[in-house]
């Protein structure tokens, strides 16, 4: 474990690895398609045998996004929700995006995976999920 490894466990089994933070998908041995979240079949060729766990790349780009201004009770707004493409894996996933004011988020912005608090389990353990952070542009000092 690295010195600043987060305490807690993933909010769902098989979805992510904490140290270092990685999303976990499945890769098809027949056609090479990667799926996230992991599935017990290949969505491209329908193979069901030999699907392997795949650690996904951590760098992505915003394919589209919205600023959610109204949500059901108990959900704090506003927040940025995006479809993020991971080009190394040819995977698109839904995620919240942080690290920029809503008005500064744009299509094609580069983003990086990070862990995010995801509530608390019934036994008191902290739960961890994922989100993506806008990568600081060159020359900019990260906050």
């Amino acid at each position, binding site marked *: 474990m690295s010195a600043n490894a987060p305490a807690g466990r993933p909010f769902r089994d098989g979805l992510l690895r904490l140290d270092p933070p990685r999303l976990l998908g499945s890769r098809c041995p027949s056609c090479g398609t990667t799926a996230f979240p992991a599935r017990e079949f290949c*969505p491209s060729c329908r193979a069901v045998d030999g699907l392997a766990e795949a650690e996904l790349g951590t760098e992505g780009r915003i394919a589209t996004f919205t*600023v959610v*201004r109204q949500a059901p009770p108990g959900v704090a707004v506003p927040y940025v*929700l995006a*479809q993020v493409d991971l080009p190394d894996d*040819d995977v698109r996933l839904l995620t919240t995006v942080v690290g920029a004011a809503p008005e500064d988020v744009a299509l094609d912005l580069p983003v990086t995976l990070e862990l995010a608090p995801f509530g608390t389990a019934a036994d008191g353990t902290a739960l961890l999920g994922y989100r993506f952070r806008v990568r600081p542009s060159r020359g900019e000092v990260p906050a």
Partner: protein
Amino acid sequence: MSLAPAHVAGVGMVRFGKYPAEVTLERMAVGAARAALADAGAALTAVDGLYVGHVFGGPVAGQRIAAQLGLDGRPVSNHENYCASGATAVREAWVALAAGLHDVVVVIGVEKMTDRISGGVRPDPGDLDAAVGYVMAAGHAMSARRYLADHGATREQIAAVAVKNHAHSVHNPYAQYQTPISLEQVLGARPIAEPLGLLDCSPISDGAAAVLLASPAGLRRLGITGPTPRVLGVGLVSGGVLTGTGDLNAEDVSRRAGEEAWKLTAVGPDEIDLVEMHDCFTIAEIVRMEGLGLIPRGQGAAWTADGHTSVGGRLPVNPSGGLLSRGHPVGATGAAQVCELTWQLRGTAGGRQVEGARTGLAYCKGGTVNGTDGGSVTTVVMAR
């Protein structure tokens, strides 16, 4: 294999809107069903079975309705496909008639939402999208953002869907909203999920719609001898698991739903005179029409702003006012679309009548499933 059409012997609705808690699911459903039976001049004793579409009605809502309506004891089934629930009930009723199981059936779509839903609807809590913050409005907002960037469309053109559908519903006595709205009102409305605002979103509504369907033998039982609009067939497909990073607005699920409809009915897309389209959000009407192949890719927004999808245009979409204006009690919508197509095909739609309407399509898309291009999609093809 082709199945026989189902004849629409009668239709009925209660006006969609926001009703107090004492106007219950059962009461609305009974009101719509009685109106459909009266429209056909049919007695309760003529009915073989009841098909009910709903999402939030709870266990055996259909049987609770039957016990209030007077169809207790009959075969009753409940159908949940989120916003396509009502249309799915129509499909199952059509299949039962074609199979010879029944000759006269009542289909009801019904929902009571305003006392139990606030802030918008979202996927099942067990779905990964819900866990990371998805709400329906957000999904359509992301679709709109990409559409604007990919097709050179404007925000005003997308907003024109709401203006057009509200202009139509001025003439629909069953619509929740019956007053026109301006482009400025849509653009200036409170933001919900950018770039979409409040008037880009269909409302949370209560309501019910009912359809009395019959086989030829059923029509004889009912003593109906004149022409009736027919449900030629109902396509049903589910969202597919997506791979890769292709066009976010590909709407392959809509393409497949259209193909199902054309295959089941031998009607081609060029024969469709009007469409009742699931415009749960403004952008949804545009990308779904394009996915079906009824409007060329990337041109739906401009078509709307240019009036091509207005009553009187080349392909009228949502003469009823659609979900944006008629309201969207989710389980009721598919049945309400069949009511509207029936009135249009009879030529009795009044100020919103599509002149010369011979063949119509009603499309519903219900729910979302993580990683797919949708939950369920239905395509009802009707002819006069």
